[in-house]
């Protein structure tokens, strides 16, 4: 069994070599005389702002709404992951286990309805 996970581990190394090779080749080509060596340029290396200079800092404190979605996600998705073991043991747990699973889903649904009624799911502007 662990034998198979080892394959994935080796694949991680291969997967690392693959993009590294592309990026490093691209970088190393500047030492070969295929293309001219690019010199640093203050204007060209500036960040893109539709042809203008950026006003103010780019990394600002962003609107809270985006993180709010993340919080909701953490609450809901973890619950859903807990349902996976339940989904796999239907044969052994029978109707009782089924009912317990429904109870678990019910808490999830009640939470969802609460969030909905509290207008937490609306991207208010």
């Amino acid at each position, binding site marked *: 069994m662990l034998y198979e996970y080892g394959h994935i581990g080796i694949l991680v190394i291969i997967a690392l070599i693959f993009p590294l090779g592309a990026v490093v080749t691209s970088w190393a080509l500047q030492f070969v005389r295929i293309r001219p060596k690019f010199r640093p340029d203050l204007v060209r290396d500036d960040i893109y702002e*539709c042809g203008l200079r950026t006003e103010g800092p780019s990394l600002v404190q962003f609107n809270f709404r985006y993180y709010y979605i993340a919080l909701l996600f953490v609450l809901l998705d973890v619950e859903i992951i807990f349902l996976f073991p339940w989904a796999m043991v239907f044969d052994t747990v029978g109707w009782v286990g089924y009912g317990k699973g429904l109870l678990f889903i019910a808490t999830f649904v009640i939470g969802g309805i609460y969030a909905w009624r509290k207008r937490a799911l609306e991207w208010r502007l």
Partner: protein
Amino acid sequence: MSGIIKSEPFVINIGPQHPSTHGVFRIKATVDGEKVIDAEMVMGYLHRSMEKLAEERTYTQNIPFTDRTDYLSSMSNNLGYCLAVEKLAGIEVPPRGNAIRVIMAELQRLASHCMAVGAFANDTGAWQTPVMWAFREREKILDIFEVTSGARLTCNYMRIGGVAFDLRPEFEPMVRRVLREFPPFIDEMEGLLSGNEIFIARTRGVGVLSPEMAINSSLSGPMLRGSGIAWDIRKADPYCGYEQYDFDIPIGYNGDSYDRFIVRLEEMRQSLKIIQQALDGLPGGPFRTEVPLALRPPKGEAYARIESPRGELGYYLVSDESPAPYRFHIRPPSFINLSALKEMTVGGTVADAIVVLGSIDIVVGEIDR
């Protein structure tokens, strides 16, 4: 919740080098998250000082300049300028010239609306398919222009007193082909876009303009008609014999971007109707009255306007009996249609601002002149 936790507004530039500003136009938007809380227009990147240049050239020499203002509807611009000069100098155009002018102006409206509709769909995020389809149809019209005037984009076809050349024999079959192939294309666009749930969700209720606001902001063309005001220069102040043709004015319901879009689509249908009538009743005779090249109109002033694809295109000319206009002013529809941009964008999201800008259908050459 978002009232408690403050976030930092920051300035984001939409333009001048932006995929959806249709040229070098810039909206300096202050945003808080996705919401636009302030919008400022910056223009003038394409200012070529046409009004000054025109004061140094004769009336006839100015016709090619008008091509370069609104380069997507050069025929209409030629027509508006020629009408102004004719009004100033009191020149009559023969009926054949008028009919050719009507056909050309309406073909130009088709071509320009193709571009407007396609680019608007592109702004909503339809990945280039509508714009490609629109370009396919626009090519046929540009071919007609090429056959007739020798140029595809900046035609320079209208002359003071008529048009430059008579029609070629290929002209009529080509226009008939457009008349035949255009209605299926409009139906196609309706099927692809105006019946599309995502498109409706993106454009309905976005950039709503009340009729009062639309009038007070001096808007014109599809912007005005989208807000539910029946106003069309072709009906209200007919020129070139538009009063002989039977057509309707499409008007929208509540003035959002979707209404402006469907108004443009319907205007294409009405244009086809006009072309059909004008082509069927194309009179013979001369196509131009002979006008001296160095025309010296009597002292005075004239304001003539036409319904260009973008709205009311006016030319205000002041003559001092010299061969060159003393004052040459263009009333550019897409410049003045931008008056209400801030009101329409502030409060919406960045994505809405793009849709609103697309629905105004600006041409930067005309804004900056």
